[in-house]
């Protein structure tokens, strides 16, 4: 055996020296390996490299900045390493620990993630005005338990988070699906008292009322769902990561460009856009289409329809028939003295993605062609879209005005009559509602929605 030891020594140490140094050297000399998916953004590599070197030479804030930049690009594993370093350097920093937990969470390691979220609960709050991470950490623990299909554990976790609407929402769902609808309803009613236009509360309320055998109230809850625009932070990671996406790379430049819109300085916008276009070059990435759209918009705004058409053509060559681009193209055709081409394009556009603006432009064209009926039909469609948007902002009275105008312009439009009836229903004008809904059914006897609403009205 002893004779073999020298050989073993050579094999182990020599082999180790041959095998390990590559990775060891990389680890020691290159603090960052840019994840492959990020390399398609031409600015990202250099900016991340700078942040990484700053982190290697700096401390906790630099590692946090580096982690944020990576997380904003969806590089969870790389961000995890950065936040882990930040959390090591500042073990009391709840922000670092929370971000670390989130990275582990989004890469499918729920139990490990929960250990870090749990650790957040033991850490002191950050001074200043930043919202507390603790309710989110408690909520995330419950979410991860749901992902592990541990409803009992999740219920206990959500009960630890009273007053945090997403947690109460999840708790109410668990109660509903475990045959405790009355307890669930009490939570939903509390939630609605504080957030009366929260969509999720109304949706869940409808299901609970179904389970309780109260179909009329369930129908009313579903109608409220239609006009509720507030969303609970049920999937908080999107809100958390969203602001981080614009910290580096092309998104940073696009954010800077958007910020110049309010200044209305075309020259400054042109300079920024030129920088974006130069960075993108001929890379096949979505940002190229976005830049083309911005270029077309800017050219149109600065009175250069030919440049706008050229930008649209560039995007079209790459297979895009984005309605926004087609809309700009139609406007550019108008401004360059080709109204007939513009109209033909808009006729295509309303088949692809109708907008109120496009309907109004087509209505103008019909009026110019001496077709008042066609004009009114198109204007009615524009009023319909405006009315629906108004209703979604929980303004049924305002919406009713649009729908009324739509029925005046085009008395044969069944959808306009239905929508008018729907608004009258919500405004408590039962007789007017019934009359409008019946008119909708007269025009389109097969339409189910007016009939469903009529069924809710007294005879």
């Amino acid at each position, binding site marked *: 055996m002893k004779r073999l030891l*020298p050989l073993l020594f050579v094999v182990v140490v020599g082999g180790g020296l041959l095998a390990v140094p590559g990775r060891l050297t990389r680890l020691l000399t290159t603090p960052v390996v840019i994840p492959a998916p990020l390399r398609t953004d031409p600015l990202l590599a250099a900016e991340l490299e700078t942040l990484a070197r700053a982190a290697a030479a700096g401390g906790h804030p630099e590692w946090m900045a580096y982690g944020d930049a990576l997380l904003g690009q969806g590089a969870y594993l790389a961000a995890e390493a950065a936040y882990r370093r930040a959390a090591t350097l500042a073990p009391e920093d709840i922000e670092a620990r929370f971000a670390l937990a989130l990275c582990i969470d989004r890469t499918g390691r729920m139990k490990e993630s929960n250990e870090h979220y749990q650790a957040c609960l033991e850490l002191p709050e950050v001074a200043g005005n930043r919202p507390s991470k603790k309710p989110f950490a408690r909520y995330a623990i419950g979410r991860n338990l749901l992902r592990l299909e541990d409803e009992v554990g999740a219920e206990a976790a959500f009960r630890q988070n009273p007053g945090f609407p997403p947690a109460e929402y999840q708790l109410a769902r668990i109660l509903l699906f475990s045959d405790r609808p009355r307890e669930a309803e009490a939570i939903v009613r509390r939630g609605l008292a504080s957030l009366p236009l929260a969509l999720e509360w109304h949706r869940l309320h409808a299901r609970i009322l179904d389970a309780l055998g109260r179909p009329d109230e369930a129908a009313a809850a579903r109608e409220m769902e239609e006009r509720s625009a507030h969303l609970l932070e049920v999937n908080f990671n*999107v809100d958390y990561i969203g602001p981080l996406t614009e910290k580096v790379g092309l998104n940073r430049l696009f954010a800077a460009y958007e910020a110049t819109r309010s200044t209305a300085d075309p020259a400054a916008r042109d300079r920024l856009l030129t920088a974006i276009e130069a960075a993108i070059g001929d890379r096949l990435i979505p940002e190229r289409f976005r830049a083309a759209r911005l270029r077309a918009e800017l050219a149109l705004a600065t009175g250069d329809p030919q440049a706008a058409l050229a930008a649209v053509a560039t995007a079209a060559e790459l297979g895009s028939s984005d309605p926004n681009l087609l809309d700009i193209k139609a406007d550019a055709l108008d401004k360059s003295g080709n109204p007939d081409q513009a109209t033909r394009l808009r006729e295509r556009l309303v*088949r692809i993605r109708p907008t109120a603006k496009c309907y109004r432009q087509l209505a103008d064209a019909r009026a110019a062609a001496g077709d008042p009926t066609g004009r009114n039909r198109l204007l009615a469609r524009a009023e319909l879209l405006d009315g629906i948007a108004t209703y979604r902002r929980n303004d049924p009275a305002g919406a009713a005005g649009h729908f009324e105008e739509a029925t005046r312009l085009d008395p044969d439009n069944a959808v306009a009559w239905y929508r008018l009836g729907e608004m009258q229903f919500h405004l408590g004008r039962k007789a007017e509602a019934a009359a409008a809904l019946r008119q909708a059914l007269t025009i389109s006897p097969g339409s189910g929605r007016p009939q469903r609403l009529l069924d809710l009205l007294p005879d």
Partner: protein
Amino acid sequence: MRLFGPLTTATTLVGVAVLCLMAWALQDRSPEGRNVGRTEASPVALSQEACSTSSGLPQITHVQVIDLDGAGRPAVIACDARGNRIIRLDRETDGAWAESVLIDDVGVPAHATFVDVEGDGDLDCLVAVLGDISPSDEAVGRVELFRRRADGYSREVLLEDVRRVADIQAADLDADGDTDLAVAVFGYSRGEILWLENTGDGQFADHRLHSAAGGIHVPIADYDGDGDPDIAAIISQDDEELWAFENLGGGTFEPRMLWRTPNFDLGSAGLVAADLDQDGDTDLILPTGDNLEDFAAYPQPYHGCLWFENRGDWTFREHRIAEFGGTYAAAVADLDGDGDNDVVLISMANDWSDPDNASVVWLENDGRQTFVTRQVATAPIHLVTVATGDLNGDNRPDIIAGSLNLRSPFERIGGVTGWLNRGPAP
């Protein structure tokens, strides 16, 4: 002097320990949740072909293999969301692919269903109009019918003023001799499942079956074996639920929740009706792996494929038959010609930072519904739709898939891609 004495022995042992420690510290440790579907080689030879010529970053939302003309030569039909059109791809006898536009100016088509709605002997096309590829609660969806004419198709809007429509299926649901429709209005925060009653003269009456966001597919089959068509639906937004609407006759349906999971993050991505175990009833196959709600998708441990075995009396037993990160669609066929049904899966959101991770796999059935995952391809990536059919007339099922290039990395770009089945691998 003894060069290798006790000191050397100790040094060697310490060296071994140190190296083991370093190797452990420096190894590429995959997260415990990693689920990438890297598997054994396929025993069936599958040769890859790019079928479409689309440039840029294609967004193909649906593919199918169908003999539109009844000429015995199936074509590939694809919904091209980026181009707002339906395209047709024909494989010529020399192996080249010819691309043509079947239907133009349709706003982000999610699904095309060919059925003889008019009863005149040819196939009309029902298009589920999403209206917007991005999350949206706007009423931008439509049900559009393109009636087959000698010179093409004529457009008719059957339903508008609804949210994003993801799927339409057709059957005579009320047994009155005409074609009715089941419709999945996916929406975003709000949505619904409808059935449209054909009332004659081209009119369809809409009836709500269920109110929930995230309805993806509504496969129709006689799930309870009572002779009439029932509707199944997968709901995938806030809730992850599998529903059936039992046809009671006379245009009435009884809703039945067949399955749900508390795991809101499962990512149900579609629903396929097929008799997977060939026992004479219709099962359901559920691919799971949609995580488009995240800024960046990452494979989760629960991504893969579930088979819901129809046990009769509206009981469906859940079986997990594959783990595969980012699974977005499934298709059923006997790929290896051994008489049982295999399953093809494609991935939209695998961990694409590793070029060896699969984008296409097939699940080889041993005849007892135990499946072995076989890797087919690692490119193209971002696949969201898959179908099988005989593309080259050799009586073997080939694979066709479509890419939705929405997310980074923008590499290994594909549009519509085929894998021709060449039989047993050499």
